[in-house]
């Protein structure tokens, strides 16, 4: 059975490219347009992994990670930040919030897939 991965990003074109890459590699994808949308969906649906942007309206990526880790359904899933942000301080914040990894955009499909395979074991 295909693994289900959520992509949370306020950019439709980025979500589109993430979904394209994941589907081409046999993953199922669920999309969220911002942190709040993602958290709502994650409270109702079990996923295998979360890929999230950092800067999003309504709730940013750090807030989303904290929300997921505080929840129950997807508490222990791997969460990888997929963001344009490359600042070490911000990375530290992500790590502290519970992020598993950090990918600075733009990503290459093979790179994203390699990271996913790594974190999903």
């Amino acid at each position, binding site marked *: 059975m295909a693994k289900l991965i959520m992509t949370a990003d306020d950019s439709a074109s980025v979500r589109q490219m993430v979904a394209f890459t994941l*589907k081409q590699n046999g993953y199922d994808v669920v999309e969220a347009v911002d942190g709040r949308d993602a958290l709502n969906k994650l409270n109702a649906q079990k996923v295998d992994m979360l890929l999230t942007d950092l800067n999003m309206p309504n709730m940013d990526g750090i807030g989303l990670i904290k929300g997921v880790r505080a929840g129950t359904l997807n508490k222990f899933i791997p969460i990888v930040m997929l963001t344009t*942000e*490359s600042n070490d301080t911000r990375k530290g914040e992500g790590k502290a919030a519970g992020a598993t*990894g950090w990918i600075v955009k733009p*990503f290459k499909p093979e790179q994203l897939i390699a990271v996913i395979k*790594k974190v999903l074991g």
Partner: protein
Amino acid sequence: MAFKIVSPGENDKQFSCWRGIIAPAIGTLRQMAGTTEDEFLQIGSRLHSFYQRSADISAMANHLVSVVSGESVVTLTSRLQQMMADMEAYLGNARSRSSQSCSTLEQVQNLLDKLSEPLEGFHKMNKTLRMLSISTKIESSRLGELGSGFVNLAMDVEKLSHQVNEKSAAILAHRQLLATLITDNLALVRATEAKQDVNVSATLKDTSANLMELVAVNERCMMFGRTVSIISAEVTDSISEVVSSMQMHDMTRQQLEHVVEALERLIGELAESKAAAADDHTLRRTIVEAGDVCELQEAQLHFAAGELYTAVCIILDNLREVARKQSLIAQETITVTGADSDGSSFIDVMSQGMTAVTAVLTSCAKADNDMSATMKKVGQTIDEIAAFVFDIEAIGSEIDLIALNSQIKAALTGTDGAALGVLAEAIKRLSDEAVRQTDAVAGILTGIHAVTEHLIADSENENDQSGTCIISMQDELAVILSSLAEMDTEMRSVLSALNERVLTLTQDVEQTTSGVDVHERTKAMADGVLASLELIVAQSRQIEPASSEFKENLRHMEEHYTMESERHIHEALARKRSGLSAVSIESVAKENSDDSEFGDNVDLF
């Protein structure tokens, strides 16, 4: 540079002018950031289709290659090679048999020629018998009552004369028949051989060439599998480039938003400066800051717009490259499989060659049958001639008997029958001559029989074997032809579908890419904004030169950056303004790069 702070009124006018430049620039930048995503989404929505169709084309190319190079084709090639060897062996044997048969027939022909002499002897014997019959009748008449017994003798001699004439005529007729049969058959065999030589040679040459082509196709296909893999990997790379470049829209949008934020802040400060009727220091600081901000945002915008332009070009180039690669695969597929673009292939030629080979084999079989029939006919005719010879031998014995009776009767007649004794002697000599001539004919016939006997037997035997062999080869060829036809049908079908798919993919990619002008439009927008910012920089620097405190003055901006490129641009400009050696953005980026297992943009915690 000379101090050019003018009156507060003039400064207000200048600030107002700058605000008037910056405000529409902000509007343009917002338009750039907010109205272009649909075009990216439209390309993105087709990307899945392009990728899937590319993969399908590669799969079809591989399938087509497997059609002409799979295990069944290897088996077919092997069978064809064996068939070629069998055919060559068969044709060689047929030629050898034909040559031997012709040689035998020529020998028979020569032997038949030798029959002329004894047959001529029979002819003379016939004339002599008739003469003796007449002479006997005359002598018998002269003797009157005394020679009355010789009349019957004369009639017997005459009867024998007729019989010799009849039998020798029959032998002559059969000899003539046989000679004609042999001459006609030799002519037919030689004509057939000459025709077959041309046909067989050309057909075997063509079939051999096609067989080599089949082997070459196999080899090319094995290599082509690797080529398809390489091209597919290149297509994957192209798609990967598109995916990366598609993200540049979002990144550029963020950069533009940061530029907008900086310009909005500047416009606010320019407005505040007017309201406060600022002092010289504040005015100078505002003017320097206007220059610094605009110079920095000019650099940021220049970079962002350039990145977007390049990204769109990369997207378009790579999508076209995907279509081009698929066309290349289709073209290469046609080349390696030996097909023409219209779907015909060497398999057609090969099938035609095989059909021709079948015709040649059929012709060979017919020639074999004809030769066998001829040899049978020769045998039958020889047997018939032998029967006539047997009859003549019997006539010889009868002559001998008549001669003995004549001699006895002549002796009983006494001196008056002396003449009849001479005639009896002559009849006796004829008897001996008859034996000699029949022995000669019998000897020739024995010779012909000896020459033809084994050939007739072998011919029947070999004809049976070669008949079986030809039927077997024809059956095998029918199977091969059927396999070739199936392969050809599938090849045409897949090739046609492949070409169709490549064509539609190329058209769709062209249709998708030709309508994309977002990069040109955003470049035009950016150029307009850049010109505005450049004007403000030039005017501000003319009033107040750039400060070495650039970095410090714009430190607040650093907090808003999210992208490394923004920081690098800021850093590069700050170094320049601080009097440090100018560095390129790329070199600053390189200083800060930190490669990891997955690339320098990935960190796993």
